[in-house]
């Protein structure tokens, strides 16, 4: 059952306790304050200094007393977040959205690129699970260090060629990967992403066309079932490849 309203929104200014590179990404650790880490797959809104809008980031790790986020510095906001150093402060709102269900028998975690972000916390909460990760380059694949023991493939090999489809899939990654996994596993739990202004249902900015209709990811997701997206029209890339 997806929640229709967000009560008790919590936002705090948290100090950064540490930051370091993970492949091309950067892991930012902040003091937890009174924020709850939430469930794996939920996200937090982090406001980069000097920016009008916060950025949605799924929780990567929940060390004692801390929250850790994996940042891919691809735009002005994420570059500002990636530049945070120990002692800096950042405004954090969350946890938000609907995370992964953990009541699965034979979990297999699947990550693509920066979609690896929610998987370390998910693996921890599941008490360990096999993991398949796909990256577009060996440089990006260095981020697999966050999930020791993971099976790693690098482009042009796809994660869909490396996984055992009979398992309960819990995934996060680029849209073509998620749509491919939805076809393999209608019950797969897939974490999507979209630009978001608020994260709590106010802005209607984060809609994604899924299952033939526009869905607010912050309220209906970001984790959705494969069958929720199956009726969706093909993406441009898929249409071009067909």
């Amino acid at each position, binding site marked *: 059952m997806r929640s*229709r*309203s*967000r*009560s*008790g*929104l919590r*936002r705090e200014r948290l100090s950064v306790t540490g930051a370091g590179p993970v492949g091309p990404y950067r892991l930012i650790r902040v003091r937890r304050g009174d924020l709850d880490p939430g469930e794996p797959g939920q996200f937090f*809104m982090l*406001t980069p200094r000097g*920016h*009008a*809008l*916060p950025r949605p980031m799924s929780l990567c790790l929940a060390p004692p007393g801390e929250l850790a986020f994996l940042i891919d510095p691809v*735009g*002005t*906001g994420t570059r500002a977040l990636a530049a945070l150093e120990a002692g800096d402060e950042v*405004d954090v*709102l969350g946890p938000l959205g609907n995370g992964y269900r953990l009541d699965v028998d034979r979990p297999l975690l699947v990550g693509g690129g920066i979609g690896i972000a929610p998987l370390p916390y998910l693996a921890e909460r599941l008490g360990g699970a096999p993991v398949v990760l796909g990256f577009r380059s060996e440089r990006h694949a260095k981020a697999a260090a966050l999930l020791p023991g993971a099976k790693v493939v690098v482009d042009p090999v796809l994660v869909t060629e490396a996984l055992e489809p009979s398992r309960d899939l819990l995934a996060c990654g680029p849209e073509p990967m998620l749509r491919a996994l939805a076809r393999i596993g209608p019950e797969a739990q897939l974490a999507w992403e*979209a*630009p*978001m*202004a*608020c994260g*709590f*249902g*106010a*802005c*209607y*900015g*984060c*809609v*994604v*066309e899924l299952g033939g*209709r*526009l869905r607010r990811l912050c*309220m209906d997701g970001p984790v959705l079932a494969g069958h929720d997206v199956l009726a969706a029209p093909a993406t441009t890339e898929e249409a071009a490849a067909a």
Partner: protein
Amino acid sequence: MIVNGSGCLDALAAPDVARGLDVFVTKTVTPLPREGNAPVRIAESEVGMLNSIGLPNPGIDRFLVESLPELARLGIPIWVSVGGFSAPDYVALCERLDTRAEVTAIELNLSCPNVQAPDGGITELVAGARSATAKPLYAKLSPALPDIGAVALAAERAGADGLTLVNTIRGLSLEERTLAPTLATSTGGLSGPALRPIALAAVHACYRVSRLPIVGVGGVESGRHALELIAVGASAVGLGTILFREPGAPARVRAELASGLAALGLSHVGEARGIAHTQDVALLPV
């Protein structure tokens, strides 16, 4: 009085945020359901936010049956924003709302930059709405109007009870790597800090010609920003983009505004309203 800018809050999704306001203004309701514009719908610029949401809403029928009773349970006054594409649309929407006790006031969205502008002049649209309801009517105007004071006066003469100033102003942002427009509709409505001086100028111009109550909206992030809008003529202040990153902003802005008024030796907003005009050098010939 602290309200939200229409479109900047879904009170059913975030009831606690809505309860922090003195009035909740709904997202714009149209005659028929609208899914809104295709994504990408939001973007950021160095000076604010761009949106092209496109007025998604359940349509007036479902709004009245499903949303309005739930909104009424919030326990704060509800203003319903309505939008149409012709004068008869505004008449029909206002007629439907007129009989509903849950509705404190109606805001006429005459200025969304992301959908087709309604046919008809401001006088026709406001007069049509006026003929259909006894509820207080607020006309929400665009800052892109060349003479917003004249339009405000026309709205007042057509029967508006108040003005909401301003809606967003059209802007565009490009992707860093590809130089393609970020928004699916290319252009969108610019809000946030960039809108602040524009809203100040609009409120300033309208207060000169009209004594209607004015809800000042545009880039307010602090009590000081709210105080400035009041000083140029606003009687209430709307929060928009700030709510997205700081849902607790209403309480903070209210407290800062009270401190700002106290620092001037004033005890309430009414005493500060329009004080910028008493020392306005622009009144002098150049």
